[in-house]
């Protein structure tokens, strides 16, 4: 029994160590400023979903597969932007690589100043904008499929 526990413990440690870490072909994320982010939102010609994330944020890891699937489904109608905050380039790139979020447009905000311009702190955070930058919903915490689908419908409808 003791041997079995030791083997299981070693397997768990090995699996934990093997997870993530590779940046793959992901290029460095472009750094943004509060002014640039506000300009991006205001000039949005399509509905916009802005997801604020960090590689050290465990809930962000949980919602990443859902956001990737939503982006793949609504790519033609909605612009998806990820804002990485208070993070390092390598950790952020490894996260993008691990969850195949390459198709997302990502911005780098190491100081968190750009996020501060949204008037909301904490991660994860998901903001939904209709085209022209009208804020429709600011969702704090992990996003679920229902909330994501409902707000995608809202911003598409209001932009149409």
């Amino acid at each position, binding site marked *: 029994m003791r041997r079995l526990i030791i083997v299981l413990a070693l397997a768990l440690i090995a*699996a934990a160590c093997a997870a993530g870490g590779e940046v793959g072909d992901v290029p460095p994320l472009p750094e943004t400023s509060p002014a640039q982010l506000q300009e991006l939102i205001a000039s949005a010609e399509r509905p916009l979903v802005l997801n604020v994330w960090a590689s050290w944020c465990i809930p962000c890891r949980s919602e990443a*597969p859902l956001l990737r699937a939503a982006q793949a489904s609504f790519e033609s109608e909605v612009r998806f932007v990820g804002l990485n905050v208070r993070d390092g380039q390598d950790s952020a790139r490894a996260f993008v690589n691990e969850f195949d979020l390459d198709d997302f447009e990502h911005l780098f905000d190491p100081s968190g100043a750009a996020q501060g311009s949204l008037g909301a702190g904490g991660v994860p955070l998901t903001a939904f904008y209709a085209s022209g930058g009208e804020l429709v919903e600011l969702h704090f915490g992990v996003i*679920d499929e*229902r909330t994501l*689908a409902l707000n995608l*419908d809202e911003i598409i*409808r*209001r932009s149409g």
Partner: protein
Amino acid sequence: MEFTLLWSALTGVAGLYLALWWMGRRDTRLCVRDLWEITVTAGVIGLAAGRLVAMLRGGVNPVAHPGDLLLVRAGVDTAAASAAALLSAAWLARADLREQLDALAPAALFGLAGWHAGCLFRDACLGTRSSLPWAWSQPGSPITRHPVELYAALLLAMAAWLLFRIRLRYPAPGLIAGLGLSAAGTVRLVTEPMRPTLFTGPVWWYAAAIVAGIAVAAWAMRHPKPTGSTGDVPPLQ
């Protein structure tokens, strides 16, 4: 688990407890405590299994990230959760399977109704667009929508009440459990098109649950346990 979702969990558990308490008052043969333990344990096992399957499907390694299991909000696979909860309940009630599941079914449906009604506390009742007079809208939105979670809550509560009435009138062991499974599948199937989703839900699983439930109910009607017979019990010394 986020606190908003905790409200739904609390209303679900409260609904379950209320239904068991009410049923226990009207049927003194019921062991409410056993039923409560079976349902809560099966519910927790179902939730964990559903979350685990959702993580695997999303590409999250549960061994490397065991803490993610607690992030229920990020997604639970409904079909896996339902199957695991049903199997756990059947295993836990195996000593007196048909009678225990019959007693559980109305209470479980009422608990599910409570879970859906919990949307009122977390502002998550809305579904697809609708122009019906009772349609609601998000704060500040001109778009009105079906309050789909309240439809589900209402239908499940009605089904629970009907099952309880039927159980008292037609005590064919297994009948109520089968009808309960069918009712849960039907409510889910009927309300699914009104839910805002990114992907098509497991509608075939709901249809399968309806068919399986009807089959169990039909089987129970054909194989009633004889009441008053001595069965295999030897003469008492």
